[in-house]
């Protein structure tokens, strides 16, 4: 069975380490914050200038001057810092963020990522995504393994305009967890009940399949 969005977030959350500064993109990455393992503390960076993003506000806490990069109203946790966009991207571009999680339309075996533009369709802009992928050496890409029509999104070469070149080394799809190295995807784990054959079939880029590919496990909820 393909992973649900919640399971994808849960799986990504296992990559968190205590003391990590983390930037979570919009969509599935945002859900990761709900699955931070016990005993682990991470500090969420929001690229509009907030380090130490807290929960959504109560009605009483609601403040139009306190938003995150998704423009949602949020709070700051004790020990948060707030700063300018230039300072925020100095952190990001300077490689100070430990982990970035973001969605993508396509990734390829060279670690290229396309996530911001589908020519002919609407172009909303790249926001901070290009800075995030250029600045981080520790990125997890979350995406479905293939389109609704079964077309692979893990390619030999991205077809859409790139967000960044050679910057992705880890991908979590609804079917598998993979690493990218030396021009190939390496299958590390598969979703519960998903066969290696299905993953092979749905991966257009070069795929290395080890002898043993463990199945992910999730606690019943």
């Amino acid at each position, binding site marked *: 069975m393909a992973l649900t969005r919640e399971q994808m977030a849960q799986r990504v959350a296992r990559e968190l380490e205590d003391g990590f500064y983390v930037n979570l993109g919009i969509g599935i990455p945002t859900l990761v914050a709900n699955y931070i393992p016990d005993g682990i503390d991470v500090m969420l960076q929001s690229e509009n200038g907030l380090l130490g993003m807290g929960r959504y506000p109560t009605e009483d806490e609601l403040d*139009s001057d306190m*938003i995150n990069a998704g423009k949602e109203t949020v709070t700051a946790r004790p020990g948060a810092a707030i700063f300018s966009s230039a300072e925020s991207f100095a952190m990001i571009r300077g490689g100070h963020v430990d982990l970035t999680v973001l969605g993508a339309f396509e990734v390829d075996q060279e670690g290229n990522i396309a996530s911001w533009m589908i020519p002919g369709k609407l172009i909303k*802009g790249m926001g901070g995504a290009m800075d995030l992928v250029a600045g981080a050496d520790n990125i997890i890409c979350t995406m479905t393994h293939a389109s609704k029509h079964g077309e692979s999104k893990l390619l030999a070469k991205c077809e859409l305009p790139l967000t960044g070149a050679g910057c992705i080394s880890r991908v979590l799809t609804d079917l598998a967890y993979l690493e990218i190295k030396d021009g190939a995807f390496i299958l590390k784990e598969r979703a519960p009940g998903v066969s290696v054959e299905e993953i092979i079939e749905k991966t257009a880029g070069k795929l290395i399949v080890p002898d043993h590919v463990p199945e992910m496990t999730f606690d019943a909820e």
Partner: protein
Amino acid sequence: MAGFDKRVSSYEEAMEGIENGMTVIAGGFGLCGIPENLIAEIKRRGVNDLTVVSNNCGVDGFGLGLLLEERQISKILASYVGENALFEQQMLNDEIDVVLTPQGTLAEKMRAGGAGIPAFYTATGYGTPIGDGKEVREFNGRHYILEEAIIGDFAIVKGWKADRYGNVMYRHTAQNFNPMAATAGKITVVEVEEIVEPGELEPSQIHTPGIYVDRIIQGTFEKRIEKRTVRS
């Protein structure tokens, strides 16, 4: 002390001198920390053919969206232009020239403009359409592209508290692009919620020193929320 008293008494005075074809750098992120009354005054004046530099372009009917409605903007540098149906339409009809610019690069281009740095290298956008036509250079085995500074004829900024010398503090995440915008205007206009006496702001906690600021005005603000998310 007339020399450092940068207060103006009307929004008309605040935007005095803005003309057709000028470049306007605006602070704000989404609808947070936007100079909403200065934008409204630009609308009122009806100047057009403006180049606007701003992370976003407001929403339909608010913020920079007002200037889109009136077809006052001919070119915009922004990182994200979603959430605005009119904008999409003008872009698809080629009525407006959109230069999509990565958010960090946009912030740094403003800072550089104010700081006398004409250009800098960044890895952001290398190997993407953003890097097309830009110089590529290798430092320590990594590729970077050259990005140039931005300076505006006007910078419009939303602050929280200021003194009449133009020293400004921002509130929470309404800071965002405002401090960089403030440095990068030939004429920098700041609207704030409160003007206090010189000395009331702790010197080392001032976000924008008055040297960057030409005019200051106290206003009232709607501060519209774009995505209201609450927990119970």
